[in-house]
């Protein structure tokens, strides 16, 4: 009851001085809100990445000319490497025994036209057979590209649902002729919708057979080759095989660095973790500063409150309140105060995350640990910064306090 009374007093104070309380709690609110928002974003991203990036590309690694470039020097060195060709792809297909799939791929951007409708900035993919597994696409209507299309360098394509929608509207897409760049292609399939990823539509593409791609757009130039290992455990073996084959084809001596690049989802994950780690560090900084400021403001307001209520403290002591009763009362008050700031912050940060998640492609998920973290943080602020004022209150001499006007 003493506890309930103290909480009641604190909440009453918050309600009685709404503006003052809001200003008092601003630091705590901002601190908690920023942590909640960022944790929610990162949490959402994490979920997203694990789901999409990893599952789609499970056990997949890519051999290409550049590999994973993180600096200009690396790029300048990589440009000089020989191109990865379709012959390389064939060699890998023939030689990597631990791979279940070897898909040559290339890509660019193009413009589509159907009658008077045009569509710009559409991803143009050249893909070898097995692309449906590696790209994780399924067919909604029609069919996938086949080995036959590839060998015959057929002018056929599979389009994403967004493309179908925009070019044909309600009309059936299959069998229609569209212009891809300047060439006439026939639509043989439309894929199932995949939605957005990092703000990029995954349904706005046109996929053509890889040799067709080579014929029309890329007589020279480098391809990349996606390899899917048989299972998780054989992935390193498959990578090693691929490396050996590629090195042999480039006549590389032992000790010489690879004249090609191999990237797998682990590489991307490492980058991703570095990025989100950075975000976390910045957030912790912002949160720490605002919580510090917020805590000092709470301490200040509690000191004012202790002074304002000196007489009350005297009365309580005269009626038999011990030091720890007074200490508890003021600690509970400061904690209630900061906790209400924390709860507002959680709602604000969570709301922000959800709103941004709803209107933008950035995913967000308000997680239970994030909420608990917010509650814990604000409680700690209340207890830590409330203890000095509470201690001062508890130490007041009852006679002096009663005399205070």
């Amino acid at each position, binding site marked *: *009851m*003493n506890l309930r*009374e103290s909480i009641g*007093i604190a909440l*009453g104070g918050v309600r009685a001085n709404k503006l003052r309380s809001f200003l008092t709690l601003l630091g705590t609110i901002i601190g908690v809100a920023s942590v909640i928002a960022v944790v929610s974003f990162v949490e959402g991203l994490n979920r997203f990445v694990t789901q999409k990036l990893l599952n789609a590309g499970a056990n997949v690694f890519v051999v290409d000319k550049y590999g994973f470039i993180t600096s200009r020097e690396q790029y300048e060195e990589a440009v000089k490497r020989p191109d990865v060709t379709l012959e390389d792809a064939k060699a890998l297909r023939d030689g990597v025994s631990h791979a279940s799939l070897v898909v040559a791929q290339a890509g660019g951007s193009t413009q589509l036209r159907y009658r008077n409708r045009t569509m710009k900035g559409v991803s143009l993919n050249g893909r070898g057979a097995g692309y449906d597994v590696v790209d994780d696409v399924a067919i909604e209507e029609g069919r996938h590209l086949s080995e036959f299309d590839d060998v015959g360098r057929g002018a056929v394509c599979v389009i994403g649902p967004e493309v179908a929608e925009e070019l044909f509207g309600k009309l059936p897409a299959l069998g229609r002729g569209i212009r891809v760049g300047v060439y006439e292609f026939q639509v043989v399939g439309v894929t199932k919708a995949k939605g957005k990823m990092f703000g990029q539509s995954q349904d706005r593409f046109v996929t053509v057979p890889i040799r067709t791609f080579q014929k029309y757009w890329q007589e020279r130039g480098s391809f990349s080759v996606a390899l899917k290992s048989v299972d998780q455990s054989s992935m390193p073996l498959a990578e090693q095989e691929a490396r050996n084959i590629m090195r042999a084809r480039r006549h590389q001596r032992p000790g010489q660095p690879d004249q090609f690049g191999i990237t797998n989802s682990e590489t991307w994950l490492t980058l991703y973790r570095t990025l989100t780690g950075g975000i976390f560090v910045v957030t912790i900084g912002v949160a720490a500063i605002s919580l510090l400021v917020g805590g000092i403001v709470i301490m200040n307001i509690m000191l004012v409150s202790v002074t304002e209520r000196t*007489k*009350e403290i*005297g*009365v*309580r*002591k*005269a*009626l*038999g*309140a*011990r*030091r*720890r*009763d007074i200490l508890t009362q003021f600690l509970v008050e400061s904690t209630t105060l900061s906790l209400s700031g924390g709860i507002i912050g959680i709602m604000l940060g969570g709301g922000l995350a959800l709103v941004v998640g709803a209107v933008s492609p950035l995913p967000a998920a308000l997680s239970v640990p994030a909420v608990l973290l917010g509650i814990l943080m604000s409680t700690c602020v209340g207890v830590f910064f409330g203890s000095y004022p509470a201690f001062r209150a508890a130490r007041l001499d*009852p*006679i002096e306090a*009663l005399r205070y006007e």
Partner: protein
Amino acid sequence: MLIQIRDLHRTYQVGDQEVRALDGVDLDIEQNEYVAVMGPSGSGKSTLMNILGCLDTPSRGSYRLKDQEIGKMSDDELARIRNQEIGFVFQTFNLLARADALHNVELPLVYAGMKHEERRQRARESLALVGLADRMKHKPNELSGGQRQRVAIARALVNRPSIILADEPTGNLDSHTGAEIMAAFEGIWKHGNTVILVTHEADIAEHARRVVRMKDGRIESDHVNPHPRIAVATGGGGSE
């Protein structure tokens, strides 16, 4: 013997000067006495009251309350004694502004660690005793001065203390309401309580059955009041 004070000294350090607020006080008070402690300001009566109320401890000498030596007690022990043995009534009522009458009266029981239901019941009884059964949910600012002081009296009584210690209880009231409050003390005393009034007003002190006069930190005189003034509640007054 309820209160036994022997050679009590209380000195304060003001700058390099030593102020002797109490300078050798001997005083015995029995159960169910009605005592007024009188004296001009600076006589030491406030210091004596603070020590009697266990808000302060003597610099030297002994104060025994119900055979317990107060002078050697820790802060928390003093708080417990105040809670259980002392009922304070102040000049300025000292009610918590944000709490209603019932809650104000409950407060000593909160610190006594009493359970909620029992506490409520006791506080209601105590308020009914001072005639405020119909004002329990009123906040102090919704009550008249006389009613506030009666809430304070109910609060002082609620823990069934050994001593009711009233410090200028009528100082902030008009004479009519003051008489009403004095009638309340009369009743409390008749119920078997020990009442100690601290005042500088002679006509208030006249209500007590024994008058102790203080001067310069010592007891100047201590005698039975031969003609106590009996305050009677005139009814109606103070309940506006």
